[in-house]
């Protein structure tokens, strides 16, 4: 029975069947982004809920100052990764490599910024994750974002290594675009985190 | 019921018969009118149910408090109930006394619900729905009993090992009886000749957790014992209040309520007898 069914495909109507489906890499990355967005949403809700509820310890307005420079770096890295992907699509592997490297550097500068801010908060302002509700929610939210930046940088660096060794070619453009989707998401999250922590929360 | 009946009918009427001719039945794909009908009707039913519910919610949660309502603060502990009557100056444990209320001149009891440790829930099924006691989240509820008697309940939110034996007893009494009870509860502990039992009580760890009003014992971790003998049960209902049970409880709480937070007091038999005798005087 199965041989017959498999061997005689159903006859199609005369018109040509145009069968185009979305790319699975993109669909999967968008789904992952939704899941991650939900995780961040919960941390954001916790942060917003606990604004002003700390019983003691330093308050946001006392110790936080908006990291404008580092934010600009991170958001620019979205631009550079976009250019990198465009370059690879049109086959310019060297140009791709250059823009990709700038993305990594900008991301690393942002991480350094977070690290130095935390250093100051811990050693100068005595704010740790155990100090009060602000400390707990701040370090958790910014930390979660920072963790995603680290993961992103690891992935980007891996691609960089492959590029240096010449393995990355024009046909990989779609995969690079999927990866850059993740990076754009990380930047978008930072916009939300920045607004919640440094604008609303203060 | 309607759907149930229709289901039953369809299962019986449309079953494949023995003399089936092997043809497929008419292939019906759907019907917009039918779909619309059985969407609109449930929506109407839902709206009606919702309106009725919303009204009840408002009447319960926004109930006005009459001036002569009794006020109680209930504090949930692992695994017992603390009751304070702020206006009456009474502190007691586990057995709640309230006056009976009259439908024409209601004297309900408004209970503020707090918790000293984890989540609990106050539930007396015959008196009302349950409300949770959550730390750092004060709640309030009211009961309005019209009949005197004893009402039983228990903690309704899992709070740890002995959640099952965190029982509730509410004594709804006539106004006169209630006033008398409150008056007795307000007194400090009965003065008796300083007994050996009292000495044991006041020099061992008992006073770290328990209060006996008017004496040195001012611990708050465990129930107030000033009028221990006015209660029918001990250990939040886990045992009846008899000398044998009381003695057993002090000797080894885990035998009655394993996992309760009262430690075994490691007292000698003699000391135990004396202590129990002293507690028996706390009426």
């Amino acid at each position, binding site marked *: 029975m*199965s041989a017959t*069914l*498999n061997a005689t495909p*159903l006859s*199609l*109507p005369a018109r040509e069947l145009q069968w185009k489906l*979305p790319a*699975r890499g993109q*669909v*999967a990355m968008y*789904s992952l982004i939704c*899941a991650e*967005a*939900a*995780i*961040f949403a*919960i941390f954001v809700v916790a942060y917003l*809920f*606990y604004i002003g509820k700390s*019983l003691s310890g330093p308050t946001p307005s006392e110790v936080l100052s908006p990291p404008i420079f580092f934010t600009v770096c991170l958001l620019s890295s979205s631009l550079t990764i976009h250019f990198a992907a465009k370059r690879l699509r049109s086959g310019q592997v060297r140009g791709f490599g250059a823009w990709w490297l700038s993305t990594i550097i900008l991301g690393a500068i942002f991480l350094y910024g977070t690290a130095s801010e935390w250093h100051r908060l811990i050693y100068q302002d005595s704010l740790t994750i155990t100090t009060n509700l602000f400390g707990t929610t701040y370090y958790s939210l910014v930390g979660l974002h920072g963790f995603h930046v680290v993961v992103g940088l690891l992935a980007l660096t891996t691609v960089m290594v492959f590029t240096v060794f010449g393995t990355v070619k024009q046909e990989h453009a779609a995969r690079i675009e999927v990866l850059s989707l993740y990076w754009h998401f990380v930047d978008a999250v930072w916009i939300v985190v920045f607004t919640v922590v440094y604008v609303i929360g203060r | 019921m309607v*759907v*149930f009946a*229709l*289901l039953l009918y*369809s299962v019986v009427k*449309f*079953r*494949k018969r023995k003399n*089936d001719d092997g043809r*497929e*039945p*008419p*292939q019906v*794909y*759907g*019907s917009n009118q039918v*779909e619309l009908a*059985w969407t609109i009707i*449930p929506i109407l039913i*839902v709206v009606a149910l*919702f309106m009725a519910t919303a009204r009840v*919610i*408002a009447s319960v949660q926004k109930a006005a408090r009459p001036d002569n309502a009794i006020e109680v603060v209930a504090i949930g502990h692992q695994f017992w109930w603390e009751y304070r009557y702020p206006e009456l100056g009474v502190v007691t444990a586990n057995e709640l006394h309230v006056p009976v209320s009259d439908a024409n001149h209601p004297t309900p009891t408004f209970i503020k619900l707090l918790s000293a*440790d984890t*989540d609990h*829930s106050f539930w007396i*099924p015959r008196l009302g*729905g349950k409300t*949770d006691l959550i730390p*750092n*989240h004060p*709640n309030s509820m009211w009961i309005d009993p019209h009949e005197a008697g004893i009402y*039983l309940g228990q903690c309704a939110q*899992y709070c740890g090992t*002995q*959640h*099952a034996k965190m029982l509730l007893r509410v004594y709804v009494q006539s106004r006169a009886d209630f006033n008398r009870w409150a008056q007795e509860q307000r007194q400090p502990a009965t003065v008796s000749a300083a007994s050996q039992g009292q000495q044991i009580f006041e020099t061992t760890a008992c006073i770290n957790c328990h209060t006996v009003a008017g004496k040195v014992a001012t611990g708050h971790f465990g129930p107030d014992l000033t009028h221990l003998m006015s209660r029918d049960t001990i250990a939040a*209902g886990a045992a009846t209040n008899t000398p044998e049970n009381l003695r057993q409880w002090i000797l080894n709480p885990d035998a009655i309520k*394993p*996992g309760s937070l009262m430690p075994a007091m490691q007292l000698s038999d003699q000391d135990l007898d004396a202590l129990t005798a002293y507690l028996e005087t706390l009426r």
Partner: protein
Amino acid sequence: MSTETIAWPSTTESSSSFVEKLHEWVTTVDHKRLGILYIAYALVFLLIGGIEATIIRIQLIRPHNDFVSPQVFNRLFTMHGTTMIFFVVMPVLFGFANYLIPLMIGARDMAFPRLNAFSFWMTAFGGLLLYFSLVGANGLYGAGNAPDVGWFAYAPLTSQTFSVGHSTDFWILALLVSGFGSIGTAINIIATTLCMRCPGMTLAKLPLFAWLNLVMAGLVILAVSPLTAAQIMLLVDRYLGGHFFDTQAGGSAVIWMHFFWVFGHPEVYILVLPAFAFASEIIPVFSRKPIFGYPVMVGATIAIGFISMSVWAHHMFTVGMSAAANTFFVISTMAIAVPTGIKIFNWLATMWGGKIEFKTPMLFCIAFLFQFLIAGLTGIMQGAAPFDWHLGNSYFVVAHFHYVIVGGILFCLFGAFYYWFPKMTGKMYSETLGRLHFWLFIIGFHLTFDFMHIPGLLGMPRRIYTYEPGRGWDTWNLIVTIGVFFQAAGILVFLGNLIWSYFRGKPAGDDPWDAWTLEWSTNSPPPAYNFYTVPTVQSRRPLWDLKHPDDPDWKYE
């Protein structure tokens, strides 16, 4: 086109040793094998969870029983709930989804086979972590302790103060790890369903099974993530000194409840939508009619998906939210009854005017319809907050959700086992044993869960290891426990049937049920490549079109 078959090199069973076969199974990325791994894993944990339930019921058979200590009882109900939800029902549903979706959409495998394998092993590891707590929770130098905080683990009971040792940590980690597995599977299901359909299969021609699993996967993405977030917060509290749920520092115990139930409520729809999927495939085939109102079924499913994200606080009616909040959650809870009811009406209409064959899968699905109807009614009752103030956290709730999960989901699952067993193994199960299983189980189910509503109405709260005599609960608890043994017998018959039929069943052929979706067009069991040629479809029932060329579906759709 000729019917000449090409000789395919056969992997003869006798040539590979046990170690080689084991290696094949452990390293497989084939969706069918992973599906079977998920299902087998779930069946093992079904037995474990069932034993936990049996012990619980024996302890509660009479007041002041001492079959187990309170500490053990508290661990038992925690483990029973956690095991059944995360390591029985979710894996078995993922297993069926993995096995059937590619076959039904004419694909050769899932979109990401290696992610598929990774997700399975993550889920499996989560289950092992949970049970490792029995050994490791007090440190390896002593017998450990299973978690005893209840399956929804309310704060602050889970803080270091009230949960010493590591039992709670194993609960947290098990759910964190298996959560990653679930999200991986969900991503795979979405990508597969959207990107791997065979030519001609537009979304409007997708089998309902695939539609329901697609919406389920979307819910997993949106709902399991909040649980992950909450678990991380709890770990921060327990190990980094955080104060997310620390009421002494001004934190909120209620916020844990919100986060948990934002997961917890969509979770039950994650569990029930695949069950609906089974019913939507089985009922039409055994009524010999197409599903009534396909577009409405799809619409209702999507509506359920959306609304289910907005009802969570109906688990918190007793917590002391404002009247406005309570009222909102009442309306959203009642609203979800509308699309769910529509589905029941559509199944009913599918059977109406059909020629119903009472084979075992259909028996279970018919029972599901009756039982799910009742479960929905008790749900609506509790959706009215004032009712819930009385019934919440009592055995009425326990009866309600077991009615849905056992009477609804498990019955559909049994139906699915019997329906697709011939496809997965190539053998037919024993119809006699199937009916025996059905009748034993349904008697036990009703004995236990019908009567369980009564102690709840009479005031018996849940999660108590014993109860006082004289509250009027004694007889009902006795009847409830008796039902357990019928259900256990039914399960044993079921497992026996599966095993016996696997070895001794009659060959089933490709299409024993005269069904209409693509999985029935290939061999039983399907070859590794699923289809000899990728099929092209024109309607929702491609095999109906083939079998009835004079009256094909695409003329009417």
